[in-house]
């Protein structure tokens, strides 16, 4: 599925300084019953966001109108747990385009890159600076520059560079995905398959 191209994103951010946010929190299993990729944003962080009667939990950050934006800043080990790509869909569908954390679980990171949600891994110190900056001013803006691989807190000018492999970076900038790439190398795959013992 093609997604929006990603070059430079300037936005306010929603802070969630909780560690080990797992995919069961991001999107609980009982909301995985769809056969289409639609509407997952409604159930993003469902059990943290809503009471069992469906009313919003006042103290949850997404229910606080002071915080908004296309960047989600999460604590260490973000996205651990299941392989459900629905977690990345839900975050994307809600309106985020980038997740910043000091550490990501592998499968979540892969899934995000595959659907056009940029995971930006920063140092624990820099993540802390982001949380502090938002705490001081919820309207503080953050710039994520993918071509330059740099993230900046605009108000203070503090910045850090981040890693992403060259191939994935090209894909994100152009809105391509791996399926396009693999389709173009079918002959090689066929040759390879011919030699397989399985």
């Amino acid at each position, binding site marked *: 599925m093609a997604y929006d191209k990603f070059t430079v994103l300037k936005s306010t951010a929603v802070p969630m300084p909780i560690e080990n946010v797992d995919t*069961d929190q991001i999107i609980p299993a009982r909301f995985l019953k769809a056969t289409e990729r639609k509407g997952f944003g409604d159930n993003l962080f469902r059990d943290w966001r809503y009471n069992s009667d469906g009313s919003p939990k006042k103290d949850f950050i997404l229910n606080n109108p002071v915080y908004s934006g296309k960047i989600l800043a999460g604590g260490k080990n973000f996205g651990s747990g299941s392989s459900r*790509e629905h977690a990345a869909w839900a975050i994307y569908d809600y309106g985020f385009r980038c997740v910043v954390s000091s550490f990501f679980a592998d499968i979540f990171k892969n899934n995000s890159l595959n659907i056009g949600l940029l995971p930006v891994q920063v140092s624990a110190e820099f993540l802390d600076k982001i949380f502090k900056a938002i705490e001081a001013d919820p309207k503080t803006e953050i710039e994520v520059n993918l071509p330059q691989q740099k993230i900046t807190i605009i108000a203070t000018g503090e910045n850090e560079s981040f890693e992403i492999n060259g191939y994935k970076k090209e894909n994100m900038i152009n809105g391509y995905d791996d399926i396009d790439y693999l389709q173009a190398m079918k002959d090689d795959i066929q040759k390879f398959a011919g030699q397989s013992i399985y």
Partner: protein
Amino acid sequence: MPTTLFDKVWDSHVVRRISSGPDVLFIDRHFIHEVTSPVAFLGLENRKLQVMYPGKTFATADHNTPTINQHLPVKDPLSANQLKALEMNSKKYGISHWGLGHARNGIVHVIGPENGITQPGMTIVCGDSHTSTHGAFGAIAFGIGTSEVEMVLSSQCIMQPKPKKMRITVNGKLGKGVTPKDVILYIISKLTAAGATGYFVEYAGEVFENMSMEGRMTVCNMSIEMGARGGIIAPDETTFTYLKGRELAPKGEAWDKALAYWKTLKTDDGATFDVEHNFKASDIEPMITYGTNPGMGLGISQHIPTAEQGSGKATYEKSLDYMGFHQEDEMLGKKVDYVFIGSCTNGRIEDFRAFASIVKGRKKADNVTVWMVPGSHIVEQQIKDEGILDILQEAGFELRQPGCSACLAMNDDKVPAGKYAVSTSNRNFEGRQGPGARTMLASPLVAAAAAVTGVVTDPRELIKD
């Protein structure tokens, strides 16, 4: 150059290396289930793509299937819709489909091995993170997302950066009442829930060499719970004996040829890993978790640790708060409302044998609800054939029908809010077993001890010498 088992298998599957990018990896076996596949099939249709090798993909229904009255139509319309989609998609593209009611149906990571679909030296993927289970056979097996399911369907490949390598060695002999589940819960408690992120783990040493295939699967299954992409154990005689004669394992000459190759699949002396960890079997006791990630586990006789100072303190306190536990609480004697034995971690015949060994001659505690869910119909049949069902029924337990059940509570098997469950599954996340449910992960022996006493109990006290 001395090479690791992981490198041998990975490198022999690379179709293309992209500089400063991922490897294009050929996939030998692909499992699909009803939850993570429908959107992948939609993707194929939108792009007008075909399934390249339908014979290499296997479909089973497990994640949201009911575990009683499977002969009746599925009540939940959304679940029924997903099951239907899996059936239709499999039919349309010529994929083998073991749906609800099929004699070989069961949890994807149980049926793969028990039918000989899983074999040493393969690359195996599935849209489920516990695909790491299959690493017990010396295969590279890991969970993938739905976009990747679409890749495998359309090109039999996925694109992956090669993970780093970790070896975890456990030597010595396991004590009484200490099972493979305790070994892996112990390792995760030492390494933390993110301690192996970015790595592929090889398990080595006497403890794994002496372990049954079922036990090895339990260990590899939970590799993902410390962040590892997967776990792998070198195939040996135990592996070959397990596989020989299974439905889809190679036969005759093909078996001999495969066997000769499988015997080369081990880490050479002198091969190096990015990280090595060593543990002693004698340090491990029956384990139980007290928090909301699988790294928060301890020996069953111990007390819940106090929070360490620092950034993790708030998360730690939030976790204990969710569980209704306190720092320094003793785990033994804590009240239990539900017991779940099942899942791809501990839903195999050996697990039910272990469970029955404790309940034999005892009675189910009145205050506990027990869900016993076999991993597959084949396991269910074994339970009956071996007389285990009689032991269980005599003690007041009922056997349900196979599926993932309360492991992720997508069907009706949900633990109510605030209730405590001792569970043989793999995740104790908030709400994993139902909104507000409180999960303590443990082995089948610890689960059985809780089922007959109604509280967290050291199974060693109930084992007859």
